[in-house]
């Protein structure tokens, strides 16, 4: 059973998700992980689907006039660090919009082996907001990393907070 990564992009309207997922169900594809959001009035959806159809056949079944659909065969990959080994943090950046905020901040994280596992950015008026889930290797000097982030934030005229994830485990 193959695994395919499917992306769907199109103008937001009621029924887009129903149409895509209906097509997937009709061809026996099973949706595993997926995420969907609206970006500038467009629906953006990414799905990991498994099934008997290869990605080429899947693409034919999903094609629609008002949607941009891609499908690629992929291999399931293990997370970059074993479960429980990484340290979870949440990064918040907010400040005036300008080019290069994401690249500057992500470069600091990448230099220490930090992995961004989820990210949302929003522009609201002049305010640019970035929220990222970050996983750090255990050996990272978090205090030094935070100093670097603070320096980058100052250079971007932005406020940066970097704090451990607070899981509500019950």
């Amino acid at each position, binding site marked *: 059973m193959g695994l395919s990564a499917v992306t769907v992009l199109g103008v937001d309207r009621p029924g887009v998700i129903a149409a895509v997922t209906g097509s997937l169900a009709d061809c026996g594809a099973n949706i595993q992980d997926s995420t969907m959001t*609206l970006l500038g009035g467009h629906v953006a959806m990414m799905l990991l689907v498994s099934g008997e159809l290869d990605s080429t056949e899947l693409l034919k079944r999903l094609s629609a006039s008002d949607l941009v659909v891609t499908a690629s065969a992929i291999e399931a990959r293990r997370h970059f660090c074993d479960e429980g080994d990484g340290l979870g943090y949440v990064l918040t950046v907010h400040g005036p919009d300008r080019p290069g905020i994401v690249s500057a901040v992500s470069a600091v994280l990448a230099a220490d082996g930090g992995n961004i596992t989820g990210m949302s950015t929003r522009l609201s008026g002049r305010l640019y*907001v970035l929220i990222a889930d970050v996983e750090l290797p255990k050996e990272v000097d978090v205090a030094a990393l935070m100093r670097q982030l603070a320096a980058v934030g100052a250079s971007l005229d932005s406020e940066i907070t970097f704090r451990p994830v607070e899981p509500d485990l019950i």
Partner: protein
Amino acid sequence: MLRLTGRRPTPRRALPCGRDPACFSFWGASGAVGGSPVDSARYRTSPTESGNPHDPPFRAACPPRSSTTGPSPCGHSVKRPGRQESAGGEPPHGCRDPGGTSSADAERTPGEAAGGTPREVLGAPHRLLSVVAEPVDPTAPEVVVAAADLLATLRSEPSTAGLAAPQIGLSWRLIAFDARRHPRSRSWAGELVVVNPRLAAASHWDHAREGCASIAGLTADVRRATRITVHGHLPGSGEPVTIEADAFEARCIQHQLDHLDGLLFLDRVPGALSLHRRLHTCDA
């Protein structure tokens, strides 16, 4: 000392927009943000030289008050046994004209001095929203005027349940709130301005979606205590006050306290998927 504890009084008002309570929070000024900085020179005071941490760090040259325990300079009695009185008709405590004795008031029309002047709500990004606000002397006339302005601004934003002084351009530790109208309020102190508030106790943490008058278009799921105790002082009389809040009022007060520390709710978002576009507003 006043001690404001929970009550469950008057029937809750319907939301002005008739929408889901989730869209009604301590936001609301979506069209009033992003303007020019507010001139705060009129409110500036001089720092104290005592160095005593128990002294107000800022002390303004104000006329001597006749009493610290009688009727407050705002003209309202400080006898307010918590939340046992009506939440609807009572004028806000400690928020009014200190008697027309300050130079700031002399510059105002009588109507303005009596009720405060609504001010522009600053929108992020703005420097004042990211700096730690300074403690002030709650008896200083400038502070009383600022409290009146803060309250007047809050009143001018019908879907806003709280504001902090930095949001109107004053880097002072003042907050105003009124959680009476929110359908998720369990109890409320009514309309109140608190000077130099500090969180003394917090418990029963929970997530809920909140927005901000200074951040148009965005909301986020934020974890906050649903039961808190806050100590502070009333403007004018300077009388100590203790607020025991729960549910939405507790969230609202913590949100305002964050403003005094230069924090936005964005700084408390628990993860990338907790940031949301605000798809509709109550004040539209």
